[in-house]
């Protein structure tokens, strides 16, 4: 649905040219929620603004819905943009218009008859739960309500793609969750392709299907969220994940030297229903190995449960090896540390 080819964007500043995006390639499938995560200054903002050409890339191509946007003239671009909606960190609503008129705005751009506008706006107001606020001005609304207006406005033109530019970064955690649930809901309901950028890992964890990590203007890691989240490869990715879980980076965990004989540290990853099964205790009972839990998380990735345990096995080496292979035989991911 979205295809970025060899995208490069450099800014000319007074002293030296700065590279915001360097030969970046990215492909987003129809109907998925794709998240791009990165630190501020990593280029994620430039990336999303290049997709609807609010920023012109220095070189490279932007394809959306099979159309090469970079090749279009101003008029054709305006037409294509109606199918690519966007919501913003600071909402960007018309302060001089009511909630109703804000949502109607994209439709008034294309001379839609008033009766059609009214039906559409009322439908969207009920979708985002703001029926009783339709005659209010944005200044009278809370942040979460403003973003709901932003989402309703974005949906008014029946878009194929929704771009979310740090859409929840200005909201408190509770409001963030309600907005994320709304995005998840409209993604399912309208089969809408969503590309979002964020610096918060839990946004990715909650609603994204796939994720890309952007660093210094290029994508350093990408894949299904579970894969990237549970087995991060790049240092930047790991940092995002461990900061989010407020736990220590398992790879840097410092443990006292034990004198309990042979021990082996392993990281076991559970995914799906298995997370709630008593697999580990069944297996250690069979092999006679003891274990201590050093660190552990049980949570969900887009409503799929997962667990990750850092355990230290104690016992004879053969028993530990047997335990590991039995765990693997149950389709658990076991990473031997040291």
């Amino acid at each position, binding site marked *: 649905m979205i295809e970025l080819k060899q995208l490069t964007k450099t800014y000319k500043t007074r002293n030296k040219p700065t590279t915001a995006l360097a030969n970046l390639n990215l492909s987003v499938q129809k109907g998925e929620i794709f998240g791009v995560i990165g630190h501020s200054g990593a280029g994620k903002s430039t990336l999303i603004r290049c997709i*609807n050409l*609010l920023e012109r890339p220095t070189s490279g191509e932007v394809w959306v819905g099979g159309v090469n946007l970079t090749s279009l003239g101003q008029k054709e671009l*305006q*037409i*294509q*943009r*109606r199918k*690519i*909606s*966007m919501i*913003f960190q*600071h909402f*960007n*609503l*018309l*302060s*001089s*218009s009511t909630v109703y008129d804000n949502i109607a*705005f*994209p439709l*008034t*751009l*294309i001379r839609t008859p008033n009766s059609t506008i009214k039906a559409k706006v009322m439908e969207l107001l009920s979708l985002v739960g703001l029926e009783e606020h339709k005659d209010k*001005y*944005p*200044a009278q609304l809370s942040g979460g309500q403003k973003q709901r207006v932003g989402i309703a*406005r974005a949906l008014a*033109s029946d878009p194929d793609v929704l771009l979310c530019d740090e859409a929840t970064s200005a909201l408190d955690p509770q409001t963030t969750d309600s907005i994320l649930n709304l995005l998840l809901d409209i993604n399912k309901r309208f089969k809408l392709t969503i590309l979002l950028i964020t610096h918060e890992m839990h946004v990715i964890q909650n609603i994204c299907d796939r994720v890309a990590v952007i660093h210094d203007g290029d994508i350093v890691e990408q894949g299904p969220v579970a894969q990237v989240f549970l087995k991060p490869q790049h240092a930047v990715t790991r940092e995002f994940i461990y900061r989010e879980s407020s736990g220590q980076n398992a790879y840097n965990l410092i443990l006292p030297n034990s004198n309990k004989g042979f021990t082996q540290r392993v990281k076991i990853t559970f995914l799906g229903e298995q997370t709630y099964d008593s697999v580990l205790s069944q297996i250690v009972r069979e092999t006679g190995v003891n274990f201590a839990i050093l660190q552990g998380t049980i949570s969900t990735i887009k409503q799929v449960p997962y667990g990750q345990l850092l355990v230290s096995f104690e016992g004879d080496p053969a028993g530990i090896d047997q335990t590991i292979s039995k765990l693997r035989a149950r389709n658990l991911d076991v990473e031997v540390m040291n």
Partner: protein
Amino acid sequence: MNLDFSLIDWEEMGQACLDTLQMLGYSAVFIFILGLPLGIILFLSSRSKLTVMKWMYGVLSFVVNILRSLPFIILIVAMIPLTRSIMGVSYGVEGTIPPLVIGAAPFFARLVETALREVDRGVIEAAHAMGASTFQVIRKVLLPEALPGLIAGMTITVVTLVSYTAMAGMVGGGGLGDLAIRYGYQRYEKEVMIVSVLIIIVMVQLLQMLGDRLVTHFTRK
């Protein structure tokens, strides 16, 4: 100080009031018609990344600055041939309107430019992202969002015009300023001067109040 207000010719005073209001009204309309587009062009060209537009901004900005720095009294005199060819006369109420317009339109244009700069860039960007054309952005985003600022700018302009019309009295422009200068200053009839000045003060107060009310009414923030 002895004041004898019975000396005042109230009929003449009434006529002068009417003249001033006419000058204000007509020139305000033309200032709006000329100044608004000029201000929009100034704003758009200052934001544009195109070299042609940057040049245009430079030129327009220069012309606007010259017209604004010219003392109004000199502008009136310098414009006499042009005024005569447009209005047929270069004195009286009609003769004052063209210099008023040329003198104040650039001033208003600058105020329009400033008011448009106050519009949140994010909102303009959002409209572009929704596929709005430049014209639609102007009509549906810039002007409605900047409306309180535009009204405030128009109020300031009209209040400034009041003092300009008084200066027009120096060259026989008619109106309250004319009256104050001819009777009060040249003939030492203090009473006429005092009453004319008082009326001008009241007029300015009322205009400012009206402007402020409208600004409050249209402010949604």
